[in-house]
């Protein structure tokens, strides 16, 4: 991995939540085209590591270096429940100052075009995850941090997710993926955070 291709690096980071040391001494690096699967049992600190990489949590020790913009999926879809899906995604497009066709393309990639006028509140869990994924795709951010992105998704949606990740990597992006089950992603590096805790 060349230094020029590096997008994200965590060096000997530790995470403390409340009084509990969740993990320590975790190092990882993500370069363009790379993907890393964080795995481990519930409570091992996968989500904390994702939030730490996103800058939402402060590392108790170590350093986090981000060289590009980040897109994040976590527990909340961050879409206004009362709005039709398309308008909810358009809000983030305005925040990210991206144009409408990119949102249309992202919705198409996740098979959401027929749901464009459905209020977010009416979407199922899997559909909301797909919507959140469309937000990530449309953002154009090179670094994707995906915390349990496939939760609630059916097999067809998982295939779309895997295809979107492959396309993103092919375009020079990188993916840090936290999941408690395996996804069929090619050339996926693994980090068992449960073994480090």
């Amino acid at each position: 991995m060349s230094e020029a291709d590096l997008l994200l690096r965590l060096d000997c980071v530790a995470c403390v939540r409340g009084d509990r040391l969740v993990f320590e001494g975790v190092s990882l690096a993500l370069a363009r085209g790379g993907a890393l699967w964080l795995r481990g049992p519930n409570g091992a600190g996968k989500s904390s590591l994702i939030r730490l990489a996103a800058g939402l949590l402060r590392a108790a020790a170590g350093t986090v270096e981000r060289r590009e913009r980040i897109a994040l999926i976590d527990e909340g879809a961050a879409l206004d429940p009362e709005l039709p899906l398309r308008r909810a995604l358009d809000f983030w497009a305005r925040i990210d100052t991206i144009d409408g066709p990119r949102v249309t393309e992202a919705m198409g990639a996740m098979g959401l075009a027929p749901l464009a006028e459905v209020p977010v509140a009416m979407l199922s869990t899997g559909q909301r995850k797909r919507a959140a994924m469309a937000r990530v795709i449309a953002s154009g951010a090179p670094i994707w941090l995906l915390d349990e992105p496939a939760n609630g998704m059916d097999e067809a949606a998982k295939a779309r997710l895997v295809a979107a990740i492959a396309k993103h990597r092919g375009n020079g992006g990188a993916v840090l993926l936290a999941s408690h089950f395996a996804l069929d992603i090619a050339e996926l590096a693994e980090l068992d955070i449960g073994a480090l805790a």
Partner: protein
Amino acid sequence: MTALIALFWRDLRRAWGSGALWLPIVFFLLVATAFPFAVGPDAPLLSRTGGGMVWVAALLAALLPIDRLVRPDKETGVLDQLAVRGFADEVVAAVKIAAHAFGFGLPLLVALLPAAALLAQDAARVEMLATGLAIAIPALASLAVLSAALTANLKGGSAIGGLLVLPLAVPLLIFGAGMLDPSGRGAVKLLGAASLLLTVIGPFAAGAALRGLRE
């Protein structure tokens, strides 16, 4: 800047879309209707005390929607998404304060007219009340967003939130009601100073509270 405007309009749309447009108006009219029954048919007394009642009602109207100002954005992950995009928490708080000021402030000023009529306020006092409220609305919005941010993690936080910011709102009430007193000529300047101070401090304090929600 485009992003901040989008965020402002979103907050304003959510405020008015969720019924907050009518809430201060209904609240004001309820207070203005109920208060004369409590005081009795003494027009001079009503006129003298009604102005203060308007100020108390304005403070409570500002605090009415605090459950909707921050908590939904925290629960759906909107605040995290904004932080990931590099928005400073203080900027997010400032936008929320501005949106809340417009969201409840404009309806409040409209509701002032019928409320003042019910409370036997003459034209000069209505003008004073409108001026005072216009000066204080940014500060009241600031206190409401601060309270909402501090209590976003607590169930039933709105009640506690009201208690938290009440001491900070007291100068606004004193100077605002003081403007109505013929001897309180300096009150408008003091109200302006208190409002400016709270409006400036608000985004920083609320920003720190928003940051605390992520830990």
